[in-house]
C-alpha cells in the first residue's frame, strides 16, 4: 500500500465545471512529485483536495492507511506553502511559525525549540521579530516554508510557490527546496505550470490536462517517451515540433517529403513529433529548408523554418553557421521520432 493514494478522485464545482476527472495516483513515502499542466487544468484543485481545502465530489484519498476525505485540514497532518505565501501580516515571523503549534497545545519551550531550529535551517533566524511586510520576497518565501516545516507534517504541499519570485531567486529557491526535501525526506507534492521547474524538481512528474492525468513518470520517461501529443508538446523547451501527416506503411508524407519511420504503422490522420534538438543538420541531409529566422542564445541557436506550410524549429550549437534566409539540409532519424494518432492524441509506437 502506498503512502498517499488517490482513488478515482473527481471534483465537480457547484456551477457544473468538472475540474478533476476520475484521477488515481499512488505516491510513495519520501517521494517528490510534481503536478504540472497549463492553468486551469485542475492541478491546484487536486492539491487543495489533498490539503482538505476543497470538498471531494467522489473518490477517496488515503494517507498513511487512513481515509482522510472528511478529516479537518488541520488534523490531516499536511502543511502547505501558498503561491502568495499567505503569511499572517499582523504577526512577527516567530509567531507566524509558532501559531499552528500553539493551536495544537504544544508547550512553549518546545515551540521555541522547533521554531529556532527551522529558522536556523532556513537562515531566517535574524528576522524572527520582524513583520512579514519588512521582508523581501525571498525571505517571505522562507518564512512560508518555515511555517510548514515546524509542523513536522506527513506531506508538504507546494502551490506554485516560486511564481512570485524573479528569475534568479526562483532558480536559487528551486535548488533549496529540492535540497531541503532531500534532507528532511518528507513526501512532497509541488504544483507548477512551469515545465522546467517540474523537470528539475520532481522524482516523478504527473502531467495533467483538463482534469485528466495524461502521464505519470520520471522526468526522463516523460521527456523521452511522451504518452500523448499533449505531453509531447507541453514538456520540453523549445516545444517539440509536430507535423501533421499521413503515414503509409511506415513512411510519413509531409509536404512532398517522405520520411521513413522504420515502424509498421498505417494511419491517415497522424502526426509525428521531433524535438528541436534531435534535428541533425548535415550537408548530406535529405531535406532542404530555408531558415526564416535565427535566434542566437549564446552557446545554442534556434532556427525557425517551415516544411511546406508547417512551421518547425531546430536547436543547434551556435558554432554552425546558418543565417536567416540561408538554406540548410537536415535528416530526421527514425528512432528519434514520436508518432501520435491525431484523433485520440495517443502515442502510436
Amino acid at each position, binding site marked *: 500500500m502506498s503512502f498517499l493514494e488517490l482513488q478515482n478522485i473527481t471534483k465537480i464545482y457547484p456551477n457544473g465545471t468538472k475540474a478533476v476527472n476520475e484521477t488515481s495516483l499512488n505516491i510513495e513515502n519520501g517521494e517528490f512529485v510534481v503536478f504540472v499542466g497549463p492553468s486551469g487544468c485542475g492541478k491546484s484543485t487536486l492539491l487543495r483536495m489533498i490539503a*482538505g*481545502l476543497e470538498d471531494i465530489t467522489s473518490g477517496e484519498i488515503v494517507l498513511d492507511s487512513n481515509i482522510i476525505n472528511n478529516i479537518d485540514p488541520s488534523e490531516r497532518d499536511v502543511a502547505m506553502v501558498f503561491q502568495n505565501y499567505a*503569511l499572517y501580516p*499582523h504577526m512577527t515571523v516567530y509567531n507566524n511559525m509558532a501559531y499552528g503549534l500553539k493551536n495544537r497545545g504544544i508547550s512553549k519551550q518546545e515551540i521555541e525549540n522547533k521554531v529556532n531550529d527551522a529558522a536556523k535551517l532556513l537562515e531566517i533566524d535574524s528576522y524572527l521579530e520582524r513583520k512579514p511586510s519588512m521582508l523581501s520576497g525571498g525571505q517571505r518565501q522562507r518564512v512560508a516554508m518555515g*511555517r510548514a516545516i515546524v509542523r513536522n507534517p506527513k506531506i508538504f504541499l507546494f502551490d506554485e510557490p516560486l511564481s512570485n519570485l524573479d528569475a534568479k531567486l526562483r532558480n536559487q529557491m528551486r535548488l533549496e527546496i529540492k535540497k531541503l526535501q532531500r534532507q528532511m525526506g518528507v513526501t512532497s507534492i509541488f504544483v507548477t505550470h512551469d515545465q522546467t521547474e517540474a523537470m528539475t524538481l520532481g522524482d516523478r512528474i504527473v502531467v495533467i490536462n483538463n482534469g485528466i492525468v495524461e502521464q505519470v513518470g520520471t522526468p526522463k520517461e516523460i521527456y523521452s517517451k511522451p504518452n500523448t501529443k499533449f505531453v509531447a508538446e507541453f514538456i520540453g523547451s523549445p516545444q517539440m515540433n509536430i507535423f501533421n501527416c499521413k503515414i503509409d506503411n511506415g513512411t510519413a508524407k509531409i509536404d512532398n517529403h517522405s520520411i521513413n519511420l522504420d515502424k509498421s504503422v498505417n494511419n491517415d490522420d497522424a502526426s509525428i513529433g521531433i524535438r528541436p534538438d534531435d534535428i541533425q543538420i548535415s550537408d548530406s541531409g535529405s531535406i532542404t529548408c530555408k531558415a526564416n529566422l535565427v535566434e542566437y542564445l549564446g552557446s545554442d541557436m534556434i532556427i525557425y523554418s517551415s516544411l511546406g506550410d508547417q512551421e518547425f524549429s531546430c536547436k543547434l550549437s551556435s558554432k554552425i553557421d546558418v543565417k536567416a534566409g540561408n538554406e540548410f539540409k537536415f535528416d530526421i532519424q527514425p528512432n528519434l521520432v514520436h508518432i501520435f494518432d491525431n484523433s485520440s492524441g495517443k502515442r502510436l509506437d
Partner: protein
Amino acid sequence: MFRFLPTTINHFILLMGLTLMIVPVWIIFASSTHTSLFINTNGLQFFLGDSFKENYSSVLFKKAGFFQEITAIKMFFNSFVMAMGIATLSVVTSLMAAYGLVYFKIKYATFIFWLIFVTLLVPLELRVMPTYVVMSKLNLLNSFAGLIVPISASAIATFFFRQFYKSIPEELLEAAKLDGTNSWKFFIDFLVPLSKTMIAAVFIFMFVYGYNQYLWPLIMTTTEEYWTVVMGLKTMYGSISHRFAFVIMSMIPPVLIIIFLQKLFIQGIFQNK
C-alpha cells in the same frame, strides 16, 4: 523656488481654515474666564480674564435641572457611558455582522447585507415612536441600556468592515485553517487585529455620534438622573460665562477620544501595511 511657492500657498490655506475653526472656540473660552457682568457690559472677549477657576468649578458642581437632581459632572459621566457604550457595541456588532456576511456561506448574504444597508434610510428620528414603545415594553426607559441599545448597530460600519474583509486574501483563511483555527479563533486572532485601524476609525465616529445624541435621550429619560451633556446645554440657564464654560467643557471628551485614538490609528497605518 517653484517648490517653495505652492507650499506657502498650501500653508496659507491651511492656516486660514484653522483660524476659521479655532477663533470662535477661543473667543468662547476667553469669554468664559470673565465674570458675566463684565461680558454683559463689554461684549465677547478675546483675552483671558481671571475668573477661570471660579466659573468652571461652579459649573461642574452646581445642581442643575428643574428638580435640581443633576450636576454637570454627572452629565459628563452619563454622556461618557452612553457614547462609550454606543461606540463599543457598534464596533462589536458590525464586526460580527460583517464576519458572518463575508465568511459564512449564508444564503442570500448580499440581500441580507442590502437589507442592513437600507436601515441607513431610517434614522432614529424617524423610528423614534416605535423604538420608544419597544424600550418601554422592555422596561428599559430611564436606564443606560435604554440610552445605548437602540443606537448600537451601525449599517455604515458593517459596510466598511464587510468591504475590508472582502479584500483579505482567501489564502489567509486557508493557511489559518491548516494551522488549526476554528471560526471563533480566526475572528479573534486574525480579523480583529487586522482591522485595528478601522476599528479605531469606526470607534471615533460612533463615539462622537453617540455623544451628540439629543432627541433620543430627551425622549426616553424622565428623571434628570440620566441627563446627558448635550441635553444639559439647553438647561444651563444661569449666567452667560457659566454657559460658555459648560460649552467648552462639553467639547473636551470627543476631542480627547480623537487625540487618543488617532495615535493608534496612525500607528496602525504605518505598521500593519
